[in-house]
């Protein structure tokens, strides 16, 4: 738990730095790529809200991301062309879906939870594939316009980028607020010791469900912004590889650090995007997989987590782990 990163002056500093980077981003990289990057960063934050603070690893985040993307594009294409309606509709869809899926999935935790969310996400994938009249099947949905926001045209990539940035900043602020609230404290307590949390009267399943729904809604928000930004929705969005990518971004950046996943998403997307343009572009997955494996093996705190740990840890002390008396470790491993 690295709440120290996201709270107080340090939180403001790190958040401010990321925000400043976000402000200049579309002038440094191609604006549409910048849009994609911020959307994935938000998706990673949504995932961290779940994994970092409840210990639940969802391997089905793409169902909210991609599902909301479909809803958003369908609403723009067939509806009023209003950006707000499309995004709200998409988030509502993700929220209801998360509620239904969560109702089933939070009955189990750990590895089971990962496998169950993965499997349920596949249901939506196959539905999207076969309900071609609604989703365009394997061809996807293309829209000609991003819609309008209270009369403002969003077709300019930079205008749309800054809109996405504002939404993302507000969402991240919301996430920070959630994890620093009493609700977040209960989540943390549950993650550390579920039995104890239960014994003091918390209905742990309800708390987990609430976290899952929040995470799903945020992922849906990110996915709808992504789909509208790219003016398309397709099977790539609901594919399990997208869920895997979101997991990788978060762990790359640092579980439970909120800001870490933003850095992780930026790194992942940049690596992915720019490696794919180089002569070793056909080896992208080898590069990504290897980097990810190394992080898991030697740097489980993630990039931001490791930096924090190395340079900002309050005071290094040797902690004797009660369960493993034969091992002396510096700080407990971040338990997932």
């Amino acid at each position, binding site marked *: 738990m690295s709440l120290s990163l996201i709270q107080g002056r340090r939180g403001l500093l790190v958040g401010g730095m990321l925000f400043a980077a976000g402000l200049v981003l579309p*002038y440094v990289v191609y604006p549409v790529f910048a849009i994609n990057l911020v959307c994935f960063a938000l998706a990673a934050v949504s995932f961290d809200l779940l994994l970092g603070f409840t210990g639940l690893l969802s391997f089905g985040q793409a169902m909210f991301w991609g599902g909301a993307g479909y809803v958003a594009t369908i609403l723009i294409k067939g509806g009023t062309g209003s950006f707000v309606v499309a995004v709200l509709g998409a988030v509502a869809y993700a929220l209801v879906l998360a509620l239904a899926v969560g109702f089933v999935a939070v009955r189990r935790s750990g590895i089971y939870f990962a496998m169950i969310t993965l499997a349920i996400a596949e249901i939506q994938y196959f539905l999207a594939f076969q309900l071609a009249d609604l989703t365009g099947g394997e061809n996807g949905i293309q829209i000609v316009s991003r819609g309008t926001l209270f009369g403002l045209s969003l077709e300019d990539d930079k205008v749309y980028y800054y809109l996405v940035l504002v939404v993302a900043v507000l969402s991240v602020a919301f996430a920070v607020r959630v994890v620093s609230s009493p609700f977040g404290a209960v989540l943390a307590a549950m993650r550390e010791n579920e039995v104890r949390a239960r014994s003091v009267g918390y209905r742990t399943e309800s708390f987990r469900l609430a976290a899952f729904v929040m995470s799903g809604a945020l992922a849906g928000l990110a996915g709808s912004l992504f789909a509208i930004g790219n003016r398309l929705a397709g099977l790539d969005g609901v594919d399990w590889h997208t869920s895997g990518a979101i997991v990788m971004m978060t762990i790359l950046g640092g579980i439970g650090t909120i800001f870490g996943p933003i850095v992780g998403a930026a790194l992942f997307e940049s690596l992915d995007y720019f490696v794919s343009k180089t002569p070793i572009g056909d080896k992208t997955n080898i590069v990504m997989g290897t980097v990810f494996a190394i992080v898991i093996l030697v740097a489980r705190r993630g990039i931001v987590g490791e930096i924090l740990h190395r340079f900002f840890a309050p005071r290094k002390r040797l902690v004797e782990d009660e369960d493993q008396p034969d091992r002396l470790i510096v700080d407990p491993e971040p338990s997932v």
Partner: protein
Amino acid sequence: MKGSLLRQVAGRRGILEWFDEFEIHFSVTHEGERVKLFRLSTAGAVIVAVLSSLGAPQGGNAQSGPIHIAVITDMSGIYSAIAGRGAVEATKMAVEDFGGSVLGRQIVVDAIDHRNNGPEAATKAREAFDNGAELAMDETNSAVALAVDAVAKEKHKLEIVTGGATSALTGASCSKYTYHYAYDTYALAASTGRNIARQPNGKTWYGIVPNYAFGTQMLADFTAAIKPEGASFIHADMVPVANADFSSYLLAAKNSGAQVLGVLNAGADTVNTMKQAKQFGLDKSMKIAVGLLFLSDVDALPDVFAGSRITTSWYWNEDAAARAWADRFTKRLGGGLRPTSIQAADYSATWQWLQAVKAVGSVDADKVVAYLDGRQFNDFYAHAAEWRARDHRVTHEMYVVDVLPKEQIKEPHAWFKIVQVMPPSRAFRPESQSVCVKTW
């Protein structure tokens, strides 16, 4: 001026390349400012440069710099053998044969890997158009082709699809800025279907059809194609997505007494179907029509596809001109592989586009479209061809071929035997049936 400032402040080659990748554009030319920046740290210089470029147009080299052709293709995935590197090289060959420049501007071919991902293809296409690409090519993968179609429409740049199969490109999604060049699902179905249905033992069909958009479209097109010849599907199984076990459908097909087995799926599904069909001995009792198949598929699995009948838009050994080009292509790529129809189409389309640009004296898509619409041409790839103005379908001859077994081929990769040449009027959807709503 792209990157020129950094060349001074960063200096190191590795960093430079890295920044080039990030597509930084500078409009800083002021000598005094340049000296001033020199004194700043690298990081500071980047920030100042970035801020000073606020408001500078991205890719402001539309009128003078090189003309880019973006070959948006699958460089490593399942379509990389059909198009991939070969598609890029074929396009480069066309550019080199044309002289390497047009309207006094150099022509640059950019290979863009779409990795079979719609949003990625759209983003990269957008970036390419913004950075001087005047033509997007290939797009092997229907979802990618449709995604780029939308971008081309938005940017008013030209897209010539040689790889994507969906006839929606000239149907519901037709656009002024998209031509569909090589083949489509309708042409495949019309040619193969009509050819087989004409024969006395080609009247009753059994379909194995994937239950998604491609499959239902294929079935509809095949059904329409064989009907005039008095043939029909006695049954079609709508096989679920990602199904790997076709034995129940194949068994039913065998018991149905149908004369023709229509394998209307694609990719790995087709391989699974064909493998299991051979286990049931169906290849001996029925004629097998495969909806979508390329030379490279047969290269990979010759025994699996031997004996099936398909349609291709071009075959490297179809005549002397095709063969001459194929020899050059094979020599250029090395490894002995022969070009697929899509790779040949990439060359042909690039050449035709360059001719048009030269003729109108502009790369402007509207002017090029005005020139191309209705124009007829012939080259080593496209015979009796026309840029159809009605829906931007490029029509030409199609070839119904049999896939020969290993023992019967006369030289490596000579898998096909042409059994019928389909004239364009019969191969492609007639204008009268077009569902394209022409808005231009």
